[in-house]
């Protein structure tokens, strides 16, 4: 036991022994708190048995002495009180004068921090929470629109001169977001064609119209799934990459360095990324379409025993001249949505690594959401146009 207690007529005598460090703090604190000061007129403390009195141990003792004194008990030390106590007194006094507060600084601060640290979570009244979210969402929308406006202005400002459009940077982003994404996009397009072919073959065979498998694969891949799945993959790959790159550049003050040297970060960082993606995604979509049709051919050849010539003929009959373009025309729009979402959230990062992670996640989720929303709008539009 680090605290040996003897009760005498005058009061308590405490013999303190052993290590008084942060590792023992829990035990020390508990023992000192458990001491009953009721009826003790005087406490005499002998610290000579302590092997090492570290700051945390001294804090436990200091708190006890404070408690005893507030309870009206006189506290005396056998010999000199340990230096650490006077260090604590001095530290607290300095802090208190700085805080210009009559309360003991530590108690005051822990009170303060408890207030400021309290999460605005489920405890906050519902109305406040709703209001906060509404204002936050409104502000996000405005900031997003401002960002979009700035991107468009910068783009049209730089499109007049080749140097300001940064072709090398654009080429790099076409490579990063397009060329390196070919294998995964192709694989997914192939698998999607396989899935549609299998599913529709099962259904249509019973009706004896399994030739329509070709129609389903062709139209499905060309109009919708080729471009949609490619966009989802690219949102995951490049939307996150944009947000993470720009975000860590923000954290590293690289963006500030650009601004300070008179370079517009929108011109060198944001626009080349978005333009690069707008070029790359339609090309990726065309590749996905090709691979999807090939997948359909392979499947119908082996699943339905349909000769290749018949497949090609059927494809020609199934599609109208617009089918391919209806798919590809959506790609640049999706690309712009993904690029803007990634860059916008990347540029929003400030302060901490956690913020970076959060915003990268938001960037990807929002990019995918906008892509699907836009696809739905396109579907309505094309239906109205009878395409």
């Amino acid at each position, binding site marked *: 036991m680090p605290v040996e207690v003897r009760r005498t007529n005058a009061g308590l005598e405490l013999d303190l022994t052993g290590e008084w*460090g*942060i*590792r023992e*703090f*829990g035990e020390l*604190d508990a023992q000192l708190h458990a001491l009953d000061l009721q009826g003790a007129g005087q406490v005499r403390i002998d610290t000579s048995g302590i092997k090492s009195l*570290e*700051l*945390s141990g001294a*804090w436990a003792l200091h*708190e006890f002495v404070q408690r005893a004194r507030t309870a009206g008990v006189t506290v005396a030390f056998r010999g000199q009180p340990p*230096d650490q106590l006077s*260090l*604590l007194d001095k*530290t*607290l006094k*300095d*802090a208190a004068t*700085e*805080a210009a507060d009559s309360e003991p*600084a*530590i108690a*005051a*601060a*822990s009170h*303060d*921090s408890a207030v*400021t*640290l309290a999460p605005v979570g489920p405890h906050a009244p519902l109305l406040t929470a709703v209001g906060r979210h509404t204002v936050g969402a409104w502000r996000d929308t405005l900031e997003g629109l401002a960002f979009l406006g700035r991107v468009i202005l910068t783009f049209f400002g730089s499109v007049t001169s080749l140097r300001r459009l940064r072709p090398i940077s654009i080429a790099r982003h076409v490579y990063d977001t397009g060329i390196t994404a070919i294998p995964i996009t192709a694989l997914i397009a192939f698998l999607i064609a396989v899935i549609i072919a299998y599913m529709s073959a099962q259904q249509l065979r019973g009706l004896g119209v399994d030739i329509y498998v070709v129609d389903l694969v062709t139209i499905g891949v060309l109009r919708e799934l080729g471009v949609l799945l490619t966009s989802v993959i690219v949102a995951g790959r490049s939307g996150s990459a944009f947000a993470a790159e720009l975000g860590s550049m923000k*954290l590293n003050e690289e963006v500030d360095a650009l601004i300070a040297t008179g370079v517009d970060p929108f011109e060198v960082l944001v626009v080349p990324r978005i333009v690069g993606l707008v070029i790359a995604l339609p090309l990726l979509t065309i590749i996905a379409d090709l691979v999807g049709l090939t997948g359909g051919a392979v499947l119908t050849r082996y699943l339905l025993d349909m000769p290749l010539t018949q497949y090609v003929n059927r494809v020609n009959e199934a599609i109208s001249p617009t089918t391919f373009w209806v798919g590809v025309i959506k790609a640049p729009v999706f690309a712009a949505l993904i690029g803007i979402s990634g860059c916008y959230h990347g540029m929003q990062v*400030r*302060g*901490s*690594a*956690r*913020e970076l992670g959060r915003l990268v996640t938001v960037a990807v989720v929002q990019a995918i959401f906008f892509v699907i929303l836009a696809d739905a709008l396109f579907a309505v539009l094309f239906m109205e146009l009878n395409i």
Partner: protein
Amino acid sequence: MQYPVLEVRGLVNRFGDQVVHDGLDMEVEQDEVFGIVGGSGSGKSVLLRSILGLQRPQAGTVRIYGSDITKMTETQLLSVKERYGVAFQSGALYSGLTVLENIQEPMIEHLNLPARALDELALLKICLVGLPTSAAGKYPAELSGGMVKRAAIARALALDPALLFLDEPTSGLDPVSAAAFDDLVLYLQKQLRLTIVMITHDLDSIFRTCNRVGVIVDRKMVSGTLAQIVEYPNPWIQAYFHGERASARLGEIAHGA
């Protein structure tokens, strides 16, 4: 037997063909402030990383309180790591946590303390390093450079270590803040009876705080008291301590001694 607090013997660090340290010796005694000095690229940071166990040297021993950390497993290293604190150059505060939470982090990892004790002890450390208590709830991004450095020391002191490593504590501070920081280092050293090992470029800081200095020259270390080092016949050391900026300071020790 009494061990030195920190003892490095025959340290060799190589990266490919590049030899950074070749038989480096270093010794730090109880209660001293030991300054590590060296030109840019002389391997100060590599030395610190070797001492902290962040990097295994190719040869040599690093003894902290007598136990050789180069032969330890990661789990054994943990018990040594509890005995020293490190304040990194740029603070390396966890950016997602407040100052208070930063200081509590090592306590939560290593100890089982109630929340009240965590708050009190962390706030005590904040007061001790001269930060206002209002800084407790702030995030590192909201602090000034000097406050980040102080917060880093407060976190390094979280577990009441007896040995403290500081990596360029005054870099990036203005001379007044740097002087105040040196005072803080001296104050803490005296009050908490710390042994401090610091890497520094700051001549003012060396002259104010260090009892002994070790200079890395030619992949080895030359160490001694300031007066001894200043007289050491090596061109780099001479250039360092007898440059224009150092001359004024040298006069002071000559008078003081």
